[in-house]
């Protein structure tokens, strides 16, 4: 089909399509980080876990021919990394932010180490649903070709939002995150809760990585992540630790990331490289706007070292 001439309408459409395509890893990583941070711990290592997850998923998909096995395998490695972070951070005087930075270097180092042989072969992609079937404009169809993982991410955001409010597990995580002492008084073991929350967070981040290598951009190489795992930390703060907010923030980021390519497609090439900075500028701007010296962040877990 020939691309129809839809003029400047192409820009918002491309941004919408880009937002849906680019936001999925952000959804998963930020939901994972939200669970971890709600339990009172921060994991900057999600960036490394994301990269390692991308590599694992791609390698497994190449070997077995099944992208879903790849996603599952990635989640498994994410759990292992999360357990490691959770275990090492329980020791006194061990700084969870610094460990996260180390894990970020280590995780991406391991991924590049083991991923070297998988840069060449191509893996089967994750399937996408053609939600734009009702339209005969190719741009609309392209924008609404939605990957299954995006829909799963959306469903998970709602489920987590509900679970934090209404389930015992959600309550336990919130109590542990707000006050370790209160949790101990309730007979809970904060270390175990945080260990599990970090492990689940790791699994989420690794699935976000699997989306990168198996769908968009859909190949494995060493530049696959451009800080998605780290921006998730800022994103969670922006979302006020609320899973629904994470979903909305991820869409916003995806849209900001798609701004440059969308403008380029209609011939705006001035300052093309500056548009790459848009998501980071947006994040920083939001953090500056929402932080304040006088009060701690609304909704922040009390035990979180990043807001103290």
């Amino acid at each position: 089909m020939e691309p129809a001439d839809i003029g400047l309408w192409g820009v918002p459409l491309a941004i919408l399509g880009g937002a849906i395509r680019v936001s999925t890893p952000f959804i998963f990583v930020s939901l994972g980080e939200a669970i971890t941070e709600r339990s009172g711990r921060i994991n900057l290592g999600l960036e490394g876990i994301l990269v390692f997850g991308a590599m694992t998923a791609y390698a497994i998909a190449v070997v077995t021919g099944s992208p879903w096995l790849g996603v599952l395998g990635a989640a498994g490695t994410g759990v292992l990394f999360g357990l490691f972070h959770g275990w090492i951070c329980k020791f006194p005087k061990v700084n969870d932010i610094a460990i996260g930075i180390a894990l970020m270097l280590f995780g991406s180092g391991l991924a590049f180490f083991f991923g070297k042989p998988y840069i060449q072969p191509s893996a089967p992609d994750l399937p996408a649903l053609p939600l734009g079937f009702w339209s005969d404009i190719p741009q609309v169809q392209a924008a609404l070709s939605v990957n299954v993982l995006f829909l799963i991410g959306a469903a998970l955001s709602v489920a987590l939002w509900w679970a934090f409010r209404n389930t015992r597990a959600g309550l336990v995580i919130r109590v542990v995150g707000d006050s370790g002492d209160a949790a101990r008084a309730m007979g809970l073991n904060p270390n175990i809760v945080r260990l599990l929350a970090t492990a689940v967070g790791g699994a989420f981040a690794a699935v976000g990585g699997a989306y990168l290598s198996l769908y968009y951009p859909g190949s494995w190489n060493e530049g696959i992540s451009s800080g998605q795992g780290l921006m998730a930390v800022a994103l969670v703060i922006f979302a006020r630790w609320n899973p629904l907010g994470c979903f909305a923030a991820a869409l916003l980021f995806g849209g900001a990331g798609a701004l440059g390519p969308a403008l380029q497609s209609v011939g705006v090439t001035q300052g093309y490289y500056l548009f790459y900075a848009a998501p980071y500028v947006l994040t920083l701007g939001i953090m500056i706007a929402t932080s304040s010296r006088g009060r701690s962040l609304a909704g922040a877990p009390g035990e979180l070292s990043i807001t103290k």
Partner: protein
Amino acid sequence: MSAAESPAAGAWEWLARRSEAFVLPLAALLVGLLLFCVFLLFLGKSPLQFFDLMWRGGFGSWFSIQNTLSRAAPLLLAALCVALPARLGLVVIGGEGAIVLGGVAGAAVGHAFAGLPSVVGILGMALAGMAMGALWIGAVGALRHYRAVNETISSLLMAYIAIALMNHFVEGPLRDPASLNKPSTHPIDPAFAIGDIPGMDVHWGLIAGIVACVVAWVLIEKTAWGFSARIAGGNMRAAQVQGLAVGPLIVGFSALAGAFAGLAGVIEVAAVQGNANASIAAGYGYAGILVAFLARHNPLAIIPVAILLGGIDASGGLLQRRMGLPDATVQVLQGMIFLVILFSETFYGRFKAFNPDLWRRTR
């Protein structure tokens, strides 16, 4: 008999207390290397061959030592960018941004000043790069103090913004039309290039880095300003109650840290590249984090640690060729060492050998 009465026992106690800061990091380094050996054994590679190659590639010959020292030069300055704010309790990890923009600023001045005496040109480049870096990381400090924006995240976001800015300048306004395959800025005046130290194949950046470490050490350990910083780093609230001007302290230390990183960028441009291009984002900022933590944020300790890390880095090529290991091997090793070093923090004050108070209690 109590320790104070016997000079010999007093000396032992002093030694015991002092040795903790050396023994624990060294032990952690050793454990990190051992873990890496286990990793190699799993892959069916020989740890002995690894150590042999690492020694030969990093320190075994005059050639490899010079190679090591060249790689250590930017690490010294990059590590200072982490270590100085860390004395105030700030974890700044985005030094890469200051390095990159410092390099761009230096390259711009190095081109604009062409034809001027080389002293003016080199000083101008250094000042431009340092000012740029100071502005960049100083802003991180200001955001931290005046808006309570977490410095770890903001510095990292700003590093990504800095790299986008660099790409913008290198591909756009500052691009040399003659650079076709590898976009770069106009070359600096060759008279401003920083040469090698006489008798060595290592550029003057190494000396600049060592001097910077010594200056930073004097500043922290021997001046009132450094003393205030150490107090604020120990307990920010207490420092404020005592009437210390914490704000200028935080912004000033961050700006100085950024200035060092900016200088690293200028040196990379003036001694290695000759212009600013994508290669100046080589990851020194991130390796500097490891160096600073290994040195426990002590500027003097940064010097040997940077040389050690430079040696590991320098042997990477040899490991790749002889053992058939991917180029990420060095990164895996660094990650392992980093994790063990951070984990070792938990052992400070826990070992009886380093704690004379515990000797007495049990006697």
